[in-house]
């Protein structure tokens, strides 16, 4: 099993080395002639306004809570997905019921206006 995860480890190493290499090579090889425009913060091409540390709207917390529940649901469905090849129609029905019960919660949030952006 560890051999499968060696690829994941390799991927992680590449993911760390790639941006580091890009920054190091850029710093070593590129010419340095800064102007105020070049030194300005880059934010999607627009002139950035205010500070980067801003307080987010509390509304996001509802979405975070809903995400948390559906994330835990994924934990239960993961073994089902791993064994799917050996399981029959009954298991599919079970998973659909499992999801259906949770969709009731989503419908509750929707109909009670918790997902409304205000």
């Amino acid at each position, binding site marked *: 099993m560890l051999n499968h995860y060696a690829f994941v480890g390799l991927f992680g190493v590449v993911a760390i080395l790639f941006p580091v290499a890009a920054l190091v090579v850029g710093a070593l090889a590129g010419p340095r002639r800064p102007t105020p425009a070049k030194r300005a913060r880059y934010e999607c091409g627009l002139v950035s306004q205010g500070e980067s540390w801003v307080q987010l709207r509390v509304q996001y917390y509802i979405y975070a809570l809903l995400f948390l529940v559906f994330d835990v649901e994924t934990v239960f469905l993961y073994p089902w997905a791993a064994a799917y090849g050996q399981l029959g129609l009954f298991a599919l029905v079970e998973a659909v019921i499992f999801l259906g019960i949770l969709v009731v919660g989503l419908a*509750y949030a929707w109909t009670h206006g918790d997902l409304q952006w205000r």
Partner: protein
Amino acid sequence: MSLTQAVFILLGGMAVLGALGMVTLRNLFHSALAMILALFSIAGIYVLLEAEFLAVVQVLVYVGAIAMLILFGIMLTRDIVGRASAVRNRQWPLALAVSAGLLAVLAVALVRAAWPLATYAPAQGGVADLGLALMGPYALPFEVASVLLLVAMVGALIIAREARE
């Protein structure tokens, strides 16, 4: 030293580094990021122990959900975002004493414990076996878990709604 040992030392070092960063960094947001590093490293250690499902749960629940919730909590709070906060408060000697005591107890327990090797072979199927069990003999607890999640979701929504009004 085998490759597994080298990877373990690397992951353990990353976990300790993340934990230290979480405690010592002055910006709470950076502390939370350091905590994510520690949690990720522990997931790697689970993989090393061939506890595949536990590693997946660690990444999905702790890194994906809990850490995200903590980051949201920090970003939603006006007074602590982007501001250096005190690393110590009045209770630090007490905290130091408790931590040192816990370390001593754990160290004694680890040194005294006998570490016998398991006499039976570990299960081979792993996550797929778990899936078969969840769909077969444990189908009812599986569905009940869904009801539990539903109750948690509705309860959280009601509490959040009350807090807003």
